[in-house]
Structure formats: structure tokens, C-alpha cells
């Protein structure tokens, strides 16, 4: 974990509201693992503006990539970054996903731009698996080529039916689980809370492990401020209050008390 002045190397628009930002940040990139995040100070906001957390999409050769959606006054300014601009990042932060168990098939489940850290996981795992992805519309589908290039199966659903079957990603998960009773999957999921909770419930029902990357509004990103707490359960049943930024953002489905 370092505070680092990253240099903007490239920025590209993926679809209407989504961008990929590539930063030169060797001190961060070298340590980064899938599921970890960086805390970014957005240029052009006032002194008091908080940093914004972004999942790491890729990290290699001193470069760090994130995928973001323009959703608020912070992300609205990020597309204005130009090559050579300096951007302060703190990272890598959080615990990240564990390695895929040798005796399990990786099953990645993404909602919207939640696929970004899953792409990093697929690339780093060296394994072939399946991606189940749900999005509002076809314009919210991102990074699918990454998985196909790695030889992963990709199944898509959209809420409006503009690509793939109309539905939500748990429909795909139900179908997949019914069809693959012969293998033991290990789930790696990232997306909105409702999706994660639904995925977690199915994993518990099916007796499989599911690693859920939680999304919470954060202040400090390092576990100091207690703004992003989450009620959790230990294996012995006792409860504790964790910090999504520091103790997560990835938790196993059995840990999370919704």
C-alpha cells in the first residue's frame, strides 16, 4: 500500500458511460492482486472532495488499469484526464480474491462493470472457467472479450433483453448449477449488493464457496474511519463488525450478514 502519483498513459471510452483508464504506477501495480482496489483523488474537485475507490481491472508491467462509469460529480471529471496528467492513487487496498482452489472450477459472476476485477482474476488464475454476466442493457456489458480470449465460456443476460436472454444473472446461475452437477464450482462475484446477496444465498443452498466483492461508499479506504462497516459472522457463529475497505472488500458468502 502506497500513496503514489500515477501518470495517465491512456484513456478510452468503452461504451456510452464507461471508460478504461490506464495509469503508470509501478509501485501499486507490482503489488496488486485481483479483487483489490485503488483509492483515487480526482483532479479538479475541491480540496475537501473524498477519494473514490475503483476495483483494479488489470495490473502488469508497471501499468494499472481501472474501468469506471460516470455516475457522480467525481467520475464526471475523470474523462477530462489527458495523457501525462498526474493522478494521486492509494493502493493496492483491501484483501482481494483468494486463488482458485485446485479442485474447483472457477465461476465468475459479474453485474455491470463488476466484471472488471473478475477479468483480472481470470487472467491471473491461469485457469479456464465460466463468466456469468448480468447487465441492465447491452450498453452495460463490458470486458467480455477478455474472458473469451482466455478461453472462458461467457453467458450473458440483460434486464431489457437487448443482448442474451432477458433476466438477471441469478437466472443464469440457477441454470448453470442445474446443468453442472458433476463439477464443484468456486464462485467469484462482483456487482451490486442485491446481486451479491442473491448469489450468496444460492451458493449457501448449493453448498459451494462464493467470494463476494462488496461495494460500499468509503472515506479513508484504509480502515481508519469506519464509514464502510459490514456485519460479519465467524465460523464459530459469533458476529463482528468488519470494514469493507480493510477486512474486505471480498468476503465469503457465509461470513456476510445481510
Amino acid at each position, binding site marked *: 500500500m*502506497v500513496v503514489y502519483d500515477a501518470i495517465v498513459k491512456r484513456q478510452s471510452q468503452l461504451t456510452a458511460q464507461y471508460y478504461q483508464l490506464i495509469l503508470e504506477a509501478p509501485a501499486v501495480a507490482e503489488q496488486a492482486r485481483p479483487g483489490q482496489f485503488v483509492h483515487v483523488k480526482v483532479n479538479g474537485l*475541491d480540496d475537501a472532495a473524498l477519494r473514490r475507490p475503483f476495483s483494479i481491472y488489470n495490473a502488469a508491467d508497471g501499468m494499472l488499469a481501472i474501468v469506471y462509469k460516470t455516475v457522480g460529480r467525481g467520475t464526471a471529471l475523470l474523462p477530462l484526464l489527458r495523457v501525462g496528467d498526474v493522478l494521486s492513487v492509494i493502493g493496492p487496498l483491501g484483501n482481494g480474491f483468494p486463488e482458485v482452489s485446485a479442485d474447483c472450477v472457477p465461476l465468475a459472476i459479474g453485474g455491470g462493470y463488476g466484471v472488471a476485477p473478475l477479468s483480472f482474476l481470470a487472467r491471473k488464475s491461469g485457469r479456464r472457467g465460466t463468466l456469468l454476466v448480468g447487465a441492465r442493457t447491452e450498453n452495460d456489458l463490458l470486458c467480455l472479450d477478455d474472458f473469451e480470449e482466455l478461453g472462458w465460456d461467457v453467458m450473458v443476460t440483460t434486464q431489457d433483453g437487448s443482448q442474451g436472454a432477458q433476466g438477471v444473472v441469478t437466472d443464469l446461475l440457477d441454470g448453470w448449477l442445474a446443468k453442472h452437477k458433476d463439477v464443484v464450482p468456486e464462485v467469484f462475484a462482483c456487482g451490486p449488493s442485491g446481486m451479491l446477496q442473491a448469489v450468496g444465498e444460492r451458493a449457501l443452498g448449493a453448498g459451494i464457496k462464493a467470494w463476494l466483492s462488496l461495494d460500499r461508499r468509503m472515506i479513508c479506504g*484504509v480502515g*481508519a474511519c469506519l*464509514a464502510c*462497516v459490514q456485519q460479519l459472522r465467524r465460523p464459530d457463529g459469533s458476529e463482528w463488525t468488519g470494514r469493507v475497505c480493510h477486512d474486505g472488500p471480498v468476503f465469503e458468502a457465509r461470513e456476510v450478514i445481510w
Partner: protein
Amino acid sequence: MVKQIDMSVNVGGIAMQNPVTVASGTFGYGMEYSQLIDIRHLGAVTVKGVRLQPWPGNKLPRHAEVPGGLVNAIGLQGPGVDRFITDYMPPLQEAGVPVIVNIWGTSEEEYAEVAARLDGVSGVAGVEINVSCPNVKEGGNAFGTDPLLVSSLVRAVRRSTKLPIIPKLAPNVPAIAVFARAAAEAGADALSLINTIPAMVIDVETRRPVLSNIVGGLSGPAIHPVAVKLVWEAAQAVRIPIIAMGGITGPQQALEFMIAGATAVAVGTANFIDPTTALRVIEGIANYCVRHGYSAAREISGTVIVEKSK
């Protein structure tokens, strides 16, 4: 060759190597930031508030970003004083940095008991008495907005510990001098001010308060001029040292506080945005001393020039 500036200050019996600490609640228990900055360079580490028992804090959302600041209602989540001492103090003891422990409770007896348990704990240099947290229903601000209650509470804590005690005053009072004097006369060794300013944010689409606690406390650059005024007034009212806080983002705001009369300063919300702020402030104060011919940082305190109008 730049001559060496004496940066040390003494805050009511707490010897600090420089006048810069961090504000309670913005720096966890110190170690959270230890990978990002060398906390041994701080004048002191002021940790998050602890009471007698573990406390869960408020439900989420606990914060809202606003122009110029941050409104929070964390609600003083914490491990309780005993677990604080056993689990959180050891790495701070190893770092060797003076620790100021912010304490709170829902009764005078609780405050006094927490302070008593901290007495004699290695590394604990002082107790900051939170009489002004806006985010818990009992305790906190309920004490801080009545000078008689502040006085009585400070007396109770005074009797329970030999540690330096530092009441942290509420900003939302009609005359800060009254509270500063009440605390000083009750035996305070120093004062901290200001705490966050009570605040509220509404989501206009849902017409609901953003914070689960409905109201919270405003911190950040927006409150800095308010804090300077209160520090200036308090400094004229009492002779005990003041630790000033509220919206420091760099040396400029810290120097304003010292010139207004503060002996030391605390960096708060800025830690979240730039964790190196406190270190930049230390360097900036030293540079200011060089530029203005001071040989010691404490010479800056109370040097404000207010021309009397004729």
C-alpha cells in the same frame, strides 16, 4: 545552512516533538495509516473515541460528502477501553509516539472510569474528553452545550486520573469563552477545539436524510474560519494551551490556528484525502519559522495582530 528550529511544544504536560497531531476519528488507532506515513514523525497520535464498553456505532450511511467538507455520523464505534489497551496500544507503544486517547461515555462515572483505566498505561500521554460529539444521543454534545455540565464532568475526570486532561469543546455554543473558562477552572490541562459542527444533508429525490442518524457533524475546509474564530476567542479567555482543529489541509490553516493562539494543531478530515497532510504541515511550520526569524515553533502562538479601531 538553515539553523535548526525547535519544533517542540508542551501541551498541558504532554511533551510533543512538534505541534502537530491528528484529530480523533480521522486516524483510527494510528496503525491504519502506518504503511502510508511514518507516524513516529507526528507530535502525537490522537486515537478514535473509546468508552467503557464496546460500542457498535450508527447504521450506514454514516457519511455524506458536501462542498467544502464531509458530514459524518459514525457514532463512536469502538472496542471499549480495555480492548483498546490490550489490542490497539502495543503497536503504538512500539512506535514510541505519544498517544492522546479520546474518551466518552453516557455518565460522569463512565468518563471517570475510562480515564482511570488509562492512567499508567505505557504510551498514553493524555486524555481528550469528548464533550461534544453530535452523533450519539446520550453523552457527547449533551454535556458539551451546558457549561455547568462541562465543569462537573471535567472535575470528575480530574479526580480519576493523573494524566493531562483535554476537554474537546463543542463549537455550537453562544460564547466559547464561558466553556473554555469552565473547563480550565475545573482542572483541564489544555483544550481541544473544535469538534464537528452539527449538520444535516437531505436527498431531494427521496426527501430523506442521507445519514441513517439523520444528523451528523460537518468537518473539512468549510469549518476552518469558524474554528479560527473560536480558537482566537478561547485563547483570550484562558491561559491553558489549546490544540486547534477544523479544516486543516496544509500549513496555512495550521499557522492561522497557532497565530490565533493555539499551541498545537490537529489534522483531521484531510488525512482521508491526503495522508501526508500532517507531515506537510510540520514541514510548513518549520519553513515559516525560518522565513519569519523564529527559532522555536511555539513563538508563533498568539502572535495575531489585531489593530484596535480608534
